[in-house]
């Protein structure tokens, strides 16, 4: 009897705690995304109303900020966005291709010096990019690549993101070795094994690398800031920054509207690949 009483008491208590936790979490998540929602709502508000209220629902709905923002600089944001897409897509191709080649060599092929090269690759993982920033700038400037997309894209074709090589090596090692051996028996060259056996089986890790490369390149600010001087070449991030500078405090609507647009591709990836992104973070601790 007493036992039953304490039991139901305990369930009531844990239910109460459960409700309390939910209230806490709902409150916290609202606080977390409130700034984002506020920016979204501000971008649809008439200019004079942007700062007048903290409410999320605009009194009237206007697309003016988007139109004015899009054309707010001498070069339209359409140009910036297409530049960003071009750079990001080339970087994705470069990273997937070059990192998977290196990872295949490290994980599946036997050759002299493999361990040494692998150790060197791991060392570059820890290196802060600041150390190579200046010599790389001097190098690319000497090659006449400043004000082109080449300094942003070419390194990706040379597997500079050791992090993805590491990730792919881990994945490739998990694929049964018998597959290679069987293919080898059938007279497959290493190239064919890479292309026909390993790559098709590695879609999850290739997708992870692609998505993160895209998002990081899209958001990259320092690289474009250093290498791109001509507004025609600007990426969306540089465009936003210029917008802050050039309009000063005058066109907040346009600024917010373009900021919202610049978040759309990243948010889109998040919606579509949520599971993959979260698994990627959980297993590797990737930042961002």
């Amino acid at each position: 009897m007493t036992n039953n009483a304490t039991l139901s008491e305990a369930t009531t208590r844990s239910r109460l705690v459960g409700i309390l936790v939910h209230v806490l979490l709902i409150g916290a998540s609202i606080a977390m995304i409130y700034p984002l929602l506020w920016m979204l709502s501000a971008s649809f508000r008439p200019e004079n109303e942007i700062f007048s209220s903290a409410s999320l629902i605009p009194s009237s709905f206007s697309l003016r900020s988007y139109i004015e923002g899009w054309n707010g600089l001498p070069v339209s944001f359409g140009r910036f966005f297409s530049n960003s897409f071009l750079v990001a897509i080339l970087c994705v191709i470069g990273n997937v291709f070059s990192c998977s080649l290196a990872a295949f060599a490290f994980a599946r092929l036997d050759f002299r010096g493999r361990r040494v090269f692998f150790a060197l690759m791991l060392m570059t993982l820890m290196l802060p990019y600041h150390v190579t920033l200046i010599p790389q700038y001097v190098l690319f400037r000497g090659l006449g690549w400043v004000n082109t997309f080449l300094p942003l894209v070419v390194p990706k074709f040379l597997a500079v993101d050791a992090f993805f090589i590491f990730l792919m090596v881990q994945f490739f090692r998990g694929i049964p070795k018998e597959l290679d051996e069987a293919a080898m028996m059938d007279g497959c060259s290493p190239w064919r094994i890479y292309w026909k056996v390993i790559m098709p089986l590695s879609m999850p890790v290739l997708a992870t690398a692609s998505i993160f490369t895209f998002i990081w390149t899209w958001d990259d600010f320092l690289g474009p800031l250093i290498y791109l001087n001509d507004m025609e070449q600007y990426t969306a991030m540089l465009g936003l920054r210029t917008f802050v500078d050039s309009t000063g405090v005058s066109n907040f609507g346009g600024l917010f509207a373009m900021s919202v647009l610049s978040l759309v591709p990243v948010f889109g990836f998040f919606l579509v690949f949520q599971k993959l992104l979260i698994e990627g973070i959980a297993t590797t601790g990737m930042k961002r």
Partner: protein
Amino acid sequence: MVRGKARPWYASAEGAGYLFLLPWGIGFLCLSLGPILWSLYLSFTDFDLLTAPDWVGTANYVRMFTADAKFMTSVRVTFVYVLFSVPLKLVFALVVAILLNRGIRGLPLYRALFYLPSLLGASVAIAILWRQLFAGNGLVNQFLAQFGIEGPSWISNPNYSLWTLIVLAVWQFGSPMIVFLAGLRQIPADVYEAAQIDGASRWRQFVRITVPLLTPVIFFNAIIQTIDAFKTFTPAFIISNGSGGPVNSLLFYTLYLYQEAFGYFRMGYASALAWVLLIIIALFTAFAFLTSRYWVHYDE
């Protein structure tokens, strides 16, 4: 054996190995190893990009530690930022992860909502948003005004500006939170059941089971987040308009390095700055690994 001599060199494991490694090899030599050595050399020179580097010995390093107040400021700003943003971020991440790990309904939704700021946070757009939120007439002060508090203009007041960036960093606790969630899931449930039978309170279970078993993940998160915090650039640049102001209160180390290199074209001095950053990060990492044996438990 089938592996006859007919196989061309590039199809043998040896030849193919080198061939597959070729892009990485070129990248490693030209974009990593070469630049590292070059930057070490440049750090002992005066180099303005237009004339040949001029050997000055250790003058750059000497100047940094004896005559450069801005260097000292940037180190202080960065250390304050790291010291406050990383622990706060980790505490939030851990607390929310534990709340979410109770087998809660709607977990995927909560997880997504808490993770979203981390994902979007690297964008210039978020830095711009932050600047407006904490502006004198921004949302934060409007909110405070409802309670009769008149907030300062956070961004332009050097006493508060750095704290707005710390808040921004803490707001992005989502990715360490997800790593904590994954770590919490590894802790077997029967450990808690045994503790419950022994009558251990929830707090005791947390202190005696959760934290010790989670130390490898805490360690991992702390390292990753700290290294990342040292490298913070974009929000500092955007919020201070590239100046590091007001009164150098947002002069992050990386921002100062950028200014020296690409504002004043003092490439030699900036290279020395880069090397000092490398050494700071290496020392920090080494220290963390050395002390880890006293507090990180890897036993099953």
